[in-house]
């Protein structure tokens, strides 16, 4: 392979960017106060999950069970000032290690500094799944093969990462009108999704994907599509302490880990993060998030988005699809088994 001087310069810059991110994470380590530390139980081949949460008591039971049943052995969670009992609930779980912080979510790169630190310390050599409490990972064969099978196969094919796009789920009718109780399957309420209409481009210099679209883009961002939420993610990585997520889990460094897609016409393996953001609580939560201004770097520009959410929107269209099996999601072209049979 030949590298032009410009490529080498880019690689050098990204290297320093990665080091800066690791340095930030290291400096922010004091934000975290250990609440319950059960890391001694982590075995050398365990699959770990990392998550930063705030007031997710409603979603946590299902979130933990879903990923437990997929084969996650231990959850390392940062609680950013919950006041709904999330912290107590997590502290009581036998497979959760919990840290808490009241520091600013935004100033910690939306929690990524904290998670980077935890991953640097605990993730090295493990397959690490970094997900939010409103994300449920699915992938080809997830009904019969657990994450150990998937990661073992990824290891054998020499892929240290696995991409999973966020798939926004929504109910039929206004989102606030569908009650949900902790422990229920959120997919019984949020049954619908957009089967197509996702726009893809590649972003330089890290060559990560930038996927936008789905119900939020078509409902809220028609005036300024560039601001529509980013949907691509690389949540599952065989971690090395020198790796760092750059922008949520949308992209990471070193850049080769962003190559979740094949450019030669083949299909690489991929999954989906079922996004359960639009439970009925979103309507009140949006107002709170808007007021806190902790979720976007230029929060004021998203006022219209929050306003629309507080108005109890209905995302459903006659072209929406009902969520069924992973096979249906794959045949729609939203994810791919990529040679795994």
């Amino acid at each position, binding site marked *: 392979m030949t590298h032009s001087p410009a490529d080498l310069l880019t690689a050098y810059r990204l290297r320093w960017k990665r080091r800066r991110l690791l340095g930030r994470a290291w400096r922010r380590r004091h934000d975290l106060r250990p609440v319950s530390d059960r890391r001694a139980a982590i075995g050398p081949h365990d699959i770990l999950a990392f998550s930063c949460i705030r007031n997710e008591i409603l979603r946590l039971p299902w979130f933990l069970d879903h990923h437990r049943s997929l084969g996650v052995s231990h959850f390392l969670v940062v609680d950013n000032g919950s006041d709904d009992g999330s912290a107590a609930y997590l502290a009581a779980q036998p497979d959760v290690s919990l840290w808490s912080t009241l520091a600013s979510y935004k100033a910690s790169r939306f929690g990524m500094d904290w998670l980077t630190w935890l991953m640097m310390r605990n993730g090295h050599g493990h397959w690490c799944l970094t997900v939010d409490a409103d994300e449920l990972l699915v992938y080809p064969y997830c009904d019969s093969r657990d994450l150990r099978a998937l990661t073992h196969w990824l290891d054998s094919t020499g892929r240290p990462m696995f991409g999973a796009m966020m798939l926004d789920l929504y109910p039929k009718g206004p989102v606030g009108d569908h009650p949900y109780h902790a422990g229920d399957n959120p997919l019984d309420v949020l049954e619908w999704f957009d089967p197509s209409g996702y726009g893809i481009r590649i972003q330089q210099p890290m060559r990560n994907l930038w996927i936008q679209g789905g119900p939020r883009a078509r409902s809220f961002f028609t005036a300024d599509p560039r601001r529509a939420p980013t949907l691509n993610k690389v949540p599952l990585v065989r971690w090395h302490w020198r790796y760092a997520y750059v922008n949520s889990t949308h992209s990471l460094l070193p850049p080769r880990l962003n190559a979740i897609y094949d450019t030669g*016409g083949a*299909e690489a393996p991929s999954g989906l993060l079922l996004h359960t953001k639009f439970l009925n609580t979103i309507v009140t939560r949006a107002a709170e998030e808007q007021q806190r201004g902790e979720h976007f770097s230029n929060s004021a520009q998203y006022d219209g988005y929050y306003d629309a959410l507080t108005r109890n929107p209905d995302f459903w269209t006659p072209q929406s699809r009902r969520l069924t099996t992973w096979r249906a999601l794959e045949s729609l072209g939203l994810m791919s088994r990529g*040679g795994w*049979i």
Partner: protein
Amino acid sequence: MTDIPNGTLGFVMLCHTAFHRAAETARHWAERGCPVVIHVDRRVGQWSYDKFRNDLADLPNVLFSERFACEWGTWGIVAATQAATELILDRFPTVRHVYLASGSCLPLRPVRQLIAYLDERPRTDFIESVTTEEVGWTIGGLNMERFTLRFPFSWRTQRWLFDRYVRLQRAVGFQRTIPNGIVPHLGSQWWCLTRQTLTAILQGPDRALYDRYFRRVWIPDESYFQTLVRQVSSNVESRSLTLSKFDFQGKPHIFYDDHLQLLRRSDCFVARKIWPNATKLYATFLSDDAERQAAGEPNPGKIDRLFSKAVERRVKGRPGLYMQSRFPNEDWENGRTAAPYSVFQGFSDVFENFEGWLSKVTGSRVHGHLFAPDRVEFAGGEAVFNGSIPDNSALRDYNPRSFLANLIWATRGERQCFQFGPADLQELNWFMALDSNAQISVISGAWAVPLFKSNRNFADIRREAARLQKIEIEHLAILRHSTAKARIRIWNLAEFIENPMEPLQTIVDEISPRSLRRLTEAPRMSDLAGFGQFLQNLRNQGMQPVLMGDFPSSDDRPNESRRGRPYLVK
């Protein structure tokens, strides 16, 4: 231990991981009267090895053989096989057939059936053994050279040295001599050979010579027995009784719980590799319930189709699909989209209700101007089309390529047609021209017809005409470019209206080739009386219309020929 006496079939198992599963399988065979000799990779820790031995300590017909380090592609695996085979032949004199298996193998049919199968063929050696010329697979681009070069470096961990050393030997023309002129054969590592054959190989006079030679051959476990069996056996069935599949990287496929039916259908006796956590597979195939199944000839071919389809999906993908793990470079694919579609430029200007007519004669989905500046004109005025694609023009213009690719992907199975024109978004002109799925038909200059019919000030009309003409000229240059791959047809307005039926027939035939019927109903053509004068007026005002072809300025032709339904082509 049950009281079943040892029978004529013995198993040699090569194990290096997942010992609890290997122990289950070994126990299954041993309890059914098949002696088992187990080899455990030397690199496995003593603790695991001891536990493994302890788990099987109650079975007198399970023995452990001398341990060798079994690095992939090296002699250790053959040495281990030799030692274990010698042990089983020596200690279990009833054994007539030895079956070489691995710790991740799983019997798919009752061992009783396998014994009966072998009893009917007591002298047959089952081993895949083909000459290097006939081998369809190669790893690292090496075939015959496996036997004529030296391989002191590891392919897995010292790839750079491995490759350089191979290149060096090729450069200097180094060649090892093959002893006794034997013909190298290759094949699956997993065989089932008779005592006669094995003892002839293992106790033959030239064994030291052959061992010394194969010690330096690359991947000898796929060639040692496969070659030597041809020296000593006259009854070789060149196939493996073990079902094993390889992926496009040459790695063995792993079978999971969801492969249960597939494995049953194969009618093979043993399969590898089995995922150690495939609880359902182990529970099903190691229970005696499995006896119920019908006993046919092993037929791994039954499941080949599925495997080749999966490999194709991995290697070629689904054409026209752009998604998170498939984003082909531009120009990679012949078709940039998932299915054929048709683009009509100028037709809806020349004909009244062209969309309705086209949809009726072709049975396809006919949209208005998908790339109109103010909104996406989906067929039927839908606000959200298939795939939840909205009619919002800002979203479309933000990523028009994805918009079109998504639309064609989301409507697979139904041909899409749409109108296009110089007033529309022009960003995809190259994309469509280079897309072999696109059928682009242009009546150049037809955009002037709506201007001609409009009630605008002539100065505005002239300005707009100049703008549209400039855009269309640029578009036509792209369509006429030598690299264009779409099916492109261009007429100027004058020649098209002279004889509209023939072009229409051609286009319709291409859209629905099976119908092959003559068009009986033609679309109604717009009234063009006075159009020539209109063009003359543009000229008089300083704008030069060049795309319409030759229209006489004075309308000397009778109005009737410009109005109403055109001729039918007989």
